[in-house]
């Protein structure tokens, strides 16, 4: 098992890869994250909340940097900060034209704080790098377990609120009139998004969060005729690119996040071109 080489028998290669603990962990965590990000991402796209996803991941950076400084696991800081930030954003007025400015202002301050935390920490470079760009190959079995639990919780809650969430996302005013507790649904969604962002950061990092949480769902939204179809497609795409990224990175010294973002970008461009030709 010394020199991994690509044999063109993909299944055998795959089995061989899983013989390594770090690859097994990476595949497990990557799969859970891809499923969660595919589902939550679909709602992010139809709600046009991609700025929220972006903002939450950056808020998470500060949380993670803070907990590293305190000697805690980065994931705990990520979860705390993103959930807090998510609830805060859900309470801001949806109609407010200044909402993005308000969020952006708080965001810049928090990111600055994150930079301070990172510089105060002696292991500066590697920790910052893995938070910003993801380090799935180094994931511990404990974090795989936490990711699994978080993933299951996110999926259960999403299933329970599925229809009211869809109604609120597509047609908030009518949903409110029809008795959907839109405020509560919006808050729950932001918590789900926060949790999804937190576990996705492990794979692609805070800067590349769009690659898993927005782009696969955006591709799906171009194609899918029904929300269920859209969610299915979005999950399929994020699984495909995550597995692709992990597979390639086993043979190449370059970062997994690069292969994932490149694959999803290529797919996005391809679908847009097809779409433009058909239109």
């Amino acid at each position: 098992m010394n020199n991994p080489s690509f044999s063109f028998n993909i299944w055998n290669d795959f089995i061989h890869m899983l013989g390594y603990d770090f690859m097994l962990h990476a595949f497990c965590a990557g799969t859970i994250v891809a499923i969660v990000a595919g589902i939550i991402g679909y709602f992010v796209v139809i709600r046009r909340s991609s700025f929220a996803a972006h903002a939450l991941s950056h808020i998470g950076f500060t949380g993670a940097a803070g907990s590293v400084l305190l000697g805690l696991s980065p994931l705990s800081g990520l979860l705390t900060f993103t959930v807090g930030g998510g609830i805060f954003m859900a309470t801001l007025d949806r109609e407010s034209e200044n909402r993005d400015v308000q969020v952006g202002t708080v965001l810049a301050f928090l990111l600055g704080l994150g930079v301070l935390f990172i510089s105060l920490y002696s292991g500066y470079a590697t920790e910052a790098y893995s938070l910003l760009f993801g380090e799935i190959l180094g994931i511990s079995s404990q974090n795989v377990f936490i990711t699994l639990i978080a993933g299951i919780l996110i999926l259960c809650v999403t299933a329970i609120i599925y229809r009211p969430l869809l109604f609120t996302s597509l047609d908030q005013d009518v949903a409110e009139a029809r008795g959907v507790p839109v405020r509560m649904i919006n808050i729950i969604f932001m918590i789900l998004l926060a949790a999804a962002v937190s576990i996705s950061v492990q794979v692609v990092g805070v800067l590349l969060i769009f690659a898993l949480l927005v782009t696969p769902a955006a591709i799906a939204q171009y194609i899918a005729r029904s929300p269920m179809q859209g969610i299915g497609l979005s999950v399929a795409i994020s699984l495909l690119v995550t597995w692709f990224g992990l597979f390639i990175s086993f043979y190449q010294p370059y970062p997994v996040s690069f292969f994932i973002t490149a694959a999803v970008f290529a797919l996005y461009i391809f679908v847009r071109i097809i779409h433009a030709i058909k239109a």
Partner: protein
Amino acid sequence: MSLRTIITAKNLSVAYTNRTIWSDANFEISSGKFIAVLGPNGAGKTTLFRLLLGLIPYTSGELSILGGKPKRGNPRVGYVPQRHTIDRDTAIEALEMVRIGLSGNRWGVSLSPEKERQMALESLRIVGAEELAHRPLGKLSGGELQRVFLAEALVSKPDLLLLDEPLANLDIRREKNLIQLASEIVKSQGVTVLLIAHNINPLLPVLDSVMYIVEGKITTGTPNKIFTSEALTKLYGTPIEVLRDSQGRVAVLGIEEELHHHE
């Protein structure tokens, strides 16, 4: 179809952040009627809808709707709000949008999607938009979207339909079509339609009555009673002329100009 009263308001007043919008409103509305709600912007037309939907409280008086107090989520009240934002990129088909109006307020995932699709299709049929069922929402025109939203509101089989400015942004032909459609729904489904509009003229042939909200007061009556130069001039406090042509068609002059000043 026997007429029954579905909305009764007695000395009804409503305020928004301590400012009284309108007060002492008294009206009765029966089933199967087509009613236009008119008045300048900011007069409280949408406020009336939000009150009927149970989204906001009233400050004094009594309001009974379909035999009870207004309550949010009443499936017997259908609603098409003024602004819908539909993503031009979305491929979600019209049928799915209508379907969400049927069961979107229930928890969990649908266990009978096929039955829901049938009911959504039936609702699209009522608004004459069957052929739109499998078209992507993002590709529909303003008039087509209005039909889909109408179907979404009708799918829960309401007795009262509230349409907030459905004619805005429609050209004259589509405006006429939508009015015709609303009128047909009133007749075939026995639904009462309250429709907020700015321009009364295209609505006159099909209206049963008119609600005018001006200067904090609501006046209700048949178009013939309301549309006299004296009555409108008094309501608006500015000279307004009502003209009738040889076929009895009515044209109201002065109101639109008045309204546009507020926009």
